[in-house]
């Protein structure tokens, strides 16, 4: 078995030796340099530019402004395109925008011979604006008479949606119910992949080639074609190794503009690499959300009814828009699918940096709100926090009435048991009762559920091509992308497993090139091992069948008697070895009688989905006068079905936990409340955790086989980030008695909360 084994990553040596090439390592050294002029107001209209001084800078080749780009709006999010108009992504931005919608909007671009010339020219461009009052909160944006940020949405509401499961109004009439209300808020945070956004573009024979750090090369090709209004066949997108994405690069960022820029300089190579500051402000962020929750619980510790009102602050452009908060309020229902449930969600334009996809797509937001709320319920009603969750949580067999997604498997109960053990929960709950003094300790926990792919909300499709080499190895081409998560490695394992090859006989092509790579929508959701993995399996079975057929021809045997094991053609029953796959491949290629270039290509159109589940348990120490939280112990326990590779799986859990701790305690993008300017657009002021801030990270897996996954597996890439912040918040609550309803629990916030609670005088 290769699936299930902790093999080293297939790309690890290239990355450890420095030979792995990223976008900036490939660009022609004579490439022109493009720099974008970003608006210095948050809300307004560009009236005019004065470019005279800028053009005097030696080395400036061309300056294009918002008045020079095609008068065409296009969508940017990394979704499969919908052929149904009603489901299509919102087209609400141009390559450069005259109508300025956030502090940092793209209004012009300079192309120059070198960086200094481009930067100097940027500073010399004079802009005349008509300026309006910035609208920086969803509350202000929804006020009567608020100015429309996009004329298509006069009330600034991008989308409003609602649902009701059961009858809420009837359900709350039941006698003896305990009502608990709470308001919970999550911040804007940044993906902080270490490689910034960037691309280079050039033209060849009338076609535009864009090499970009993206998670979604095939989708980028479509978006460029929409932005430039040209056929998709005229565009070629290449994705080499990339330095992380986390959802930010599941969006068209620099690519459409860069494709346009090369076209205005005769196809010369133009590089457009964003700085760290631009990556913070001008790419995408995680949506800030605010939730108003009202719950009615019975004295036996079960939900009778609950409802949620959710507001998602979109920022300037729609990007993934409502899909995230819709996912959040769905998650509110799915985790505890009992009683009557009502959901109401708004996505609202504001003059803030644009929010888009980020690891776990709206669920870390609801995960915090819901799991904080559940602790509030337990505290108020005197329920056991673990038992209450166990009594209400999703069970195998649950089918969500709105999405039809079924719970095929669940190891959540066992996850909770192991989490409890790890932090010695029962004993600590007793020990930490009635504490006094400056330093106090507490334990907290949270659970989650997470949909693996995007079916049935959107199309799930993936294609794979496998070509047999003469040495009996195979080149595997996939549209699914490696973004650091380890996709190439687990796909290689899956291919080897199904083909009967050893791992060294599988050469997975890491680079996607839309000219040659089969279609796949790319790395997002936690879909690839589940959806693209199934395409690998299907293609491998197809290739294997063809190899066995040729071996059958060579051996004059019925191919159905043949199998492949460790690169040998064997008898399906006795396992007797007949030939090596190399012998078959050589003969197939060079046979004078029956030359046959064996390859296989299959599409998997996925019409299923499944829930991954899990929990986080944490123990913290709070230094009250210093307003600081120290994590003493923390563990995530995951049911992600069968684990394909324990080493890379651990990597996903560690990385997600780290991001979750940051979400709970450290990270937030700070926007000036008057101007809309981002204050902390750099790694010094944005508090991404350093190694010294990171505690030892515990992890564990419960592995029930999921019948819908290609190898019993389900989501793992995103889930680890979800339960951490609420577990930490609940642990601080347990330690201090102070329920903080907004994250991060950074010192300033703790100071305010502890002061309010009288712990600091």
């Amino acid at each position: 078995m290769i699936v299930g084994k902790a093999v080293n990553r297939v790309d690890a040596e290239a990355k450890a030796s420095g030979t792995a090439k990223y976008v900036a390592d490939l660009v022609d050294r004579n490439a022109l340099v493009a720099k974008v002029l970003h608006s210095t107001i948050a809300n307004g209209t560009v009236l005019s530019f004065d470019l005279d001084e800028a053009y005097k800078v030696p080395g400036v080749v061309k300056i294009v402004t918002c008045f020079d780009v095609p008068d065409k709006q296009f969508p940017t999010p990394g979704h499969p395109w919908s052929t149904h108009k009603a489901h299509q992504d919102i087209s609400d931005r141009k390559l450069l925008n005259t109508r300025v919608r956030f502090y940092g909007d793209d209004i012009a671009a300079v192309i120059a011979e070198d960086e200094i010339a481009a930067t100097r020219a940027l500073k010399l461009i004079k802009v005349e604006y008509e300026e309006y009052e910035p609208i920086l909160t969803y509350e202000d944006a929804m006020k009567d008479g608020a100015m429309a940020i996009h004329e298509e949405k006069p009330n600034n509401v991008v989308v409003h949606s609602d649902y009701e499961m059961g009858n809420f109004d009837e359900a709350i009439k039941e006698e003896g119910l305990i009502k608990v209300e709470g308001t919970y808020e999550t911040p804007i945070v940044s993906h902080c992949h270490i490689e910034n956004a960037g691309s280079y573009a050039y033209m060849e024979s009338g076609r535009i080639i864009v090499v970009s750090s993206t998670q979604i090369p095939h989708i980028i090709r479509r978006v460029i074609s929409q932005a430039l209004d040209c056929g998709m066949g005229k565009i070629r997108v290449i994705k080499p190794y990339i330095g992380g994405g986390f959802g930010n690069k599941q969006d068209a960022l620099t690519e459409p503009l860069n494709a346009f820029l090369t076209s205005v300089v005769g196809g010369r190579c133009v590089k457009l690499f964003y700085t760290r500051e631009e990556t913070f402000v001008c790419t995408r962020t995680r949506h800030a959300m605010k939730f108003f929750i009202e719950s009615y619980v019975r004295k036996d510790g079960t939900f009778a009814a609950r409802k949620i009102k959710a507001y998602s602050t979109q920022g300037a452009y729609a990007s993934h828009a409502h899909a995230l908060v819709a996912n959040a309020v769905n998650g509110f229902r799915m985790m505890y699918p009992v009683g009557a449930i009502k959901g109401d969600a708004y996505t609202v334009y504001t003059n803030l940096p644009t929010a888009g996809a980020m690891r776990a797509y709206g669920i870390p937001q609801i995960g915090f709100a819901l799991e904080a709320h559940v602790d509030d319920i337990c505290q108020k009603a005197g329920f056991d926090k673990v038992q209450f969750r166990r009594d209400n949580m999703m069970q195998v067999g649950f089918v969500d009435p709105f999405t039809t997604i079924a719970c095929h498997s669940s190891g959540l109960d066992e996850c909770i048991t192991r989490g409890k053990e790890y932090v010695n929960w029962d004993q600590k709950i007793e020990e930490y009762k009635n504490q006094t003094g400056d330093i106090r300790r507490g334990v907290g926990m949270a659970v989650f559920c997470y949909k693996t792919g995007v079916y049935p909300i959107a199309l799930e499709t993936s294609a794979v091509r496998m070509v047999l080499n003469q040495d009996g190895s195979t080149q595997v081409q996939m549209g699914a992308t490696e973004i650091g998560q380890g996709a190439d490695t687990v796909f290689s394992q899956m291919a080897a497993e199904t083909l009967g090859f050893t791992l060294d006989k599988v050469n997975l092509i890491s680079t996607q090139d839309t000219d040659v790579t089969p279609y796949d929508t790319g790395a997002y959701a936690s879909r690839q091992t589940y959806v693209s993995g199934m395409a690998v399996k299907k293609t491998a079975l197809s290739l294997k069948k063809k190899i066995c057929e040729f071996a059958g021809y060579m051996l004059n045997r019925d191919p159905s008697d043949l199998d492949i094991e460790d690169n040998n053609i064997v008898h399906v029953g006795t396992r007797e070895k007949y030939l090596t796959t190399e012998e078959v491949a050589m003969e197939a290629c060079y046979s004078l009688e029956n030359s046959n270039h064996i390859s296989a290509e299959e599409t998997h159109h996925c019409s299923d989905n499944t829930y991954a589940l899990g929990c986080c348990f944490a123990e913290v120490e709070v230094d009250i006068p210093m307003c600081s939280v120290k994590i003493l112990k923390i563990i995530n326990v995951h049911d992600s079905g069968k684990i394909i590779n324990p080493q890379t799986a651990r990597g996903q859990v560690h990385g997600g936990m780290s991001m979750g701790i940051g979400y709970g305690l450290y990270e937030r993008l700070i926007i000036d409340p008057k101007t809309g300017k981002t204050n902390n657009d750099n790694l010094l002021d944005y508090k991404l955790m350093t190694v010294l801030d990171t505690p030892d990270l515990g992890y564990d897996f419960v592995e029930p086989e999921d019948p819908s996954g290609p190898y019993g597996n389900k989501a793992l890439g995103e889930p680890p980030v979800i339960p951490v912040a609420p577990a930490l918040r609940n642990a601080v609550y347990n330690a201090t008695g102070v329920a903080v309803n907004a994250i991060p629990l950074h010192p300033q916030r703790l100071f305010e909360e502890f002061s309010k609670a009288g712990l600091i005088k």
Partner: protein
Amino acid sequence: MKKQLVTCTINGKVRENYIDPRASLSDLLRGEEHLHSIKHGCDVGECGACTVVIDGETYNSCIYMAIWAEGKNITTLEGLSTLDGTISDIQQAFIDEGAIQCGFCTPGFIMSSLPIIESDEEFTRDEIKKQVSGNFCRCTGYDTIVTAIEKTHNKRKAERAKK
């Protein structure tokens, strides 16, 4: 600006480069020497992805002027492999411990670890963390990186003790 000769030792070889005196060391190493292990994540000394070792100490090459490299001895990740391309034990440890994901921060972390693994002193896990605390990673949660350094340090110490 008029170019200027900078002579320094890079990965064991004396190198002469004519560079713009406004260039950073990372401009020299990436642009002139094509040492692409040096990554740019911030350009202001905050992310650590461009870390190199100069005369035994770690520096962010993005905020080190190339003209300051005159006469210095510089090591980049490329210099850790032997001439036949065999990677070093610390690189192998990063592979074996699963300390690499997207790989963009990896060269910087490995370079930052050199003062530890080349030292005979004892280091606690927290001291190892401190030595690489000028490097950011968003993928791994750092845990496996620290383990890879710790194991390599212990291995090298044991090897030196045998000799």
